[in-house]
């Protein structure tokens, strides 16, 4: 067992965990932040994408101890003061979700690509979504939502 301390969605958390605890399990099972999903468990689907120090990573492919001392943002940390983040709002407006299972990872990936300034056109957005899989195959509207959010955010 080991103690990890990190900032999650702006709050400092400190817990004693097993070393082998994956970041996604720490978020979901210890902190009860179940917005981050586990889809494939093999680093491919992207449902578990969160930001660590501002960068999108797959939380099923990182141990919680690796995030010690770092800052983590999950889907629960995006909305501020009850107002949806522009990317969340765009997903709602453009019907960017069907069953919704992949949505948290899609949105965290979208926020990351917009922040990096690589969501300039539909082809770039599709390429940046390589690591996120939607089993409803609703990509068209997901791309539309990200395109609209990028424009609104001035990226």
């Amino acid at each position, binding site marked *: 067992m080991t103690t990890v301390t990190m900032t999650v969605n702006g709050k400092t958390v400190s817990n004693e965990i097993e070393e082998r605890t994956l970041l996604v399990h720490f978020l979901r099972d210890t902190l009860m932040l179940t917005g981050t999903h586990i889809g494939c468990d093999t*680093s491919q689907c992207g449902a578990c994408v969160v930001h660590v120090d501002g960068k999108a990573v*797959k939380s099923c492919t990182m141990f919680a101890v690796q995030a010690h001392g770092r800052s983590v943002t999950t889907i629960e940390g995006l909305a501020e003061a009850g107002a949806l983040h522009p990317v969340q709002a765009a997903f709602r407006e453009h019907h960017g979700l069907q069953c919704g299972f992949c949505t948290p990872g899609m949105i965290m990936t979208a926020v990351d690509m917009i922040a990096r300034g690589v969501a300039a056109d539909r082809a770039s957005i599709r390429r940046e979504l*390589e690591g996120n899989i939607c089993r409803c195959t609703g990509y068209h509207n997901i791309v539309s939502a990200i395109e609209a959010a990028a424009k609104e955010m001035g990226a």
Partner: protein
Amino acid sequence: MITYPFAYQRAANLAEAEALLGANPEAKLLAGGQTLIPTMKQRLASPPLLIDISGLHELSGNRRDGERLVLGAALTHAEVAQSPEVRTLIPALAELASHIGDPAVRHLGTLGGSVANNDPAADYPAAVLGLNASVITTRREVPADKFFTGMFETMLAPDEILRAVAFPVPRRAAYAKFANPASRYAMVGVFVAQTTEGVRVAVTGAAPSVRRLPMMEKALEASFTPEAVAHIKIDADGMNEDLHGSAQYRAHLVTVMAKRAVAAALA
């Protein structure tokens, strides 16, 4: 999926990491973890100790060393892809890094991890071999021709740590990959470089380990054009064969990717 239990220690510096590795022969180094963690989750590896070397300043950054660009082992694929120095001096290498895995994987996976693991379908080994780079470790500098010794095998001793890779700046170079649509690993990837010491061609994904293609190198020495390699048939004997493609298919792909790489290098 969870891994077998293990102990975890973050190394304060390279010397400590080396000492820990020396004292624990079964331990594994953890940097980006993008190959190691999936392998541990499948319980195909059970290291009793993980030594975290991510963030060690001795492994980070890049520097110019004469005609070589020396890249720290801990540089992530995203960092290499975006590095102004790499994009200016060896754009083919930045391009290669920008197509490894997906954006989230590129934020964590490292140059050193990819090179030390020598996955038969990894991209970086093709660049290291194709550019005639040298691998710098905690105790020596090994030329690429000697570094990769077989499937998932390298010259690295169990307690030796890969510190950096020194890439000679080529006159021109390019990498063409036919990516597996699910994993983005190379079904076949060909790296072509025209250097002051001649042409080098390295292929990954096709065989159990990255290898050079002497016939193509000779043809490109005579004429650095796609046509020069277009009619070179690669023997399917010894090529990888799996559910994604037969040995014959991969052998054919090698020529196609070589043509594309030469065309890209000339573009």
